């Protein structure tokens, strides 16, 4: 199945047509989705596949559902017309007097793998963290699965509860952030029991499945301090995936790893991607990004400078993006 992909940006003096569609935050309303650059009308998206930016390289979401991650029902469970999983519009965020996001727009569709890259300090991580409200945006709209969570003008009653949001969005951190006082299994079962309210045996069962899917069930009784970085990160992925998220956020998941451990984590992520999981990945692993990114976003100085579909790393024309890609690849 091919899903139209769209990406917007604003305040960028480029040649892209996105500029012409700069959003008027003030007039933006609930349920009004199709304002992003090149967006297809909403009805079209669920009906026939609209012409897409990457039609030649359809990522094959309908592909082998062979992977035994407990997340496969994610997409089909979406109500009709809800193929947009995450939609950020005009997101602004300041730390003190420094604005780190100058009004960013991102749309993520079900099954899509979005890669965000760029130099450090460009706001990638902050952007990612606003998606599950670990950072509270100062301005703009954050819609996840059709519910508004952002500070955009919206009646309080209609705004979603951040707890609900985080229950649908999984996150993997650069520093793993496993709970050091709990075994690998308990790291996974904690939220299954306290958030999903599963019984102990059901939670154990689910956690075992998740750990098996990252190849670490054997290590279930080990504590994080007894695991390598790569293993810790895989447990962290299992912890997030076990909760059945509709989208997974990865914040530089391999940056804290020794080079020889990067592969095992990327392998798990690849498997997850193949299973159809919607993913947003901030990474410096551009080879990996080139391989799995359905949509690639280059950020710099708190703005989306350039974006493109599959093939972006070889075809993009933006000088700054080219320079950055060249310096990393």
């Amino acid at each position, binding site marked *: 199945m091919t899903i139209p992909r769209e990406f917007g940006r604003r305040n960028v003096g480029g040649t892209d047509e996105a500029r012409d569609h700069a959003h008027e935050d003030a007039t933006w309303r609930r349920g009004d989705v199709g304002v992003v650059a090149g967006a297809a009308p909403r009805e079209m998206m669920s009906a026939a596949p609209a012409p897409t930016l990457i039609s030649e390289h359809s990522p094959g979401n309908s592909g082998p559902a062979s992977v035994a991650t407990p997340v496969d029902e994610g997409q089909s469970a979406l109500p009709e017309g809800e193929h947009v999983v995450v939609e950020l519009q005009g997101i602004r965020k300041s730390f003190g007097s420094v604005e780190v996001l100058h009004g960013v727009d991102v749309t993520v569709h079900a099954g899509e793998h979005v890669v965000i890259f760029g130099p450090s300090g460009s706001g990638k991580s902050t952007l990612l963290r606003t998606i*599950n409200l*670990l950072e509270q945006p100062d301005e703009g709209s954050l819609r996840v699965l059709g519910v508004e969570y952002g500070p955009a003008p919206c009646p309080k009653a209609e705004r979603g509860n951040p*707890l609900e949001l*985080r*229950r649908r*969005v*999984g*996150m993997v*951190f650069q*520093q793993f*952030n*496993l*709970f*050091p*006082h*709990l*075994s690998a*299994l*308990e790291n996974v079962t*904690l*939220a299954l029991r*306290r*958030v999903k309210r599963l019984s102990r045996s059901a939670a*154990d069962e689910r*956690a*075992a499945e998740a*750990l*098996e899917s990252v*190849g*670490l*069930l*054997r*290590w*279930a*009784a*080990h*504590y994080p*301090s*007894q*695991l*390598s970085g*790569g*293993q810790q990160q895989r447990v*962290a992925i299992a*912890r*997030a995936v076990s*909760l059945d998220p509709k989208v997974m956020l990865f914040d530089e998941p391999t940056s804290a790893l020794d080079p*020889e*451990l990067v*592969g*095992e984590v990327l*392998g798990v992520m690849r498997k997850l991607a193949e299973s159809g999981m919607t993913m947003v990945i901030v990474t410096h692993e551009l080879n990996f990004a080139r391989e799995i990114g359905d949509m690639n976003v280059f950020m710099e100085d708190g703005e989306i400078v350039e974006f493109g579909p599959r093939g972006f790393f070889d075809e993009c024309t933006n000088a700054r993006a080219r320079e950055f890609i060249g310096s990393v690849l």
Partner: protein
Amino acid sequence: MTATVFDWSIIWQYRGELVGGMATALEVAAVGLLISIVVGLALAVGRMSRRPVSSLAALWINVFRGVPALVSVLWVYFGWSLLLGINLSVFEAGVVALVLLYGAFLAEIFRSALEAIPRGQREAGMAVGLHRARVFVHVVLPQAIKIAIPNVGSMFIGMVKTTSVFSVIGLLEVIHVTENIEATTFQPFVLYTAAAAIYVAIAFLLDFAFRLFERSLSKPATGGIAGWVMARKRQRIALIAARGTAVTGAASVSGQGSAV
């Protein structure tokens, strides 16, 4: 005359009273510790929250860290009775005085322990959808307790020693017992040496106990007690782990992970 100056046998003779005094001191200190932990934790959380609350907590902490134990217990025992009509037993007054003083000290210990937990831990807890209170209870607190344990142990030893001051209100703890015996035997040196020995013995004992507790909280837990307490859980998880497929390529990397 010189031969009979130090009569060490009276220690044995009055062993019942001395041990009784020790028990009383430990009791007051233990009850005081339990309540102080609750009060201290509340103060620490208060100190770390928003403005009016944090200021009040800071005020409490700074006031009671500055009050000497003697003043505190006299104030509680006689002052509360006069002003508020609250007549506490000497035991209760001792406990309250300890809580006022050591609640403040423990608050600072807990605050630094809570602040030592990396921000990423809270974030990870929130990211899996846990409510803030649950993040605190299940993620932050267990780790903070481990950090705080050695200092709490020192505080407990301090509390036991502080009970010696409560002889002024007539609490029958070690010093008060010693004074009573001395009044009839005229053996101050012998008796106060015995009292000192009792305090030192308690300090060693408590230090040992808290070390054991601390070790049992380290992950993976070490020490027989922890192994015994956690045996069932360990077994349950080991059983699940055993179902795992054999080592998958990259998974064997760590090498440090010893068998369960």
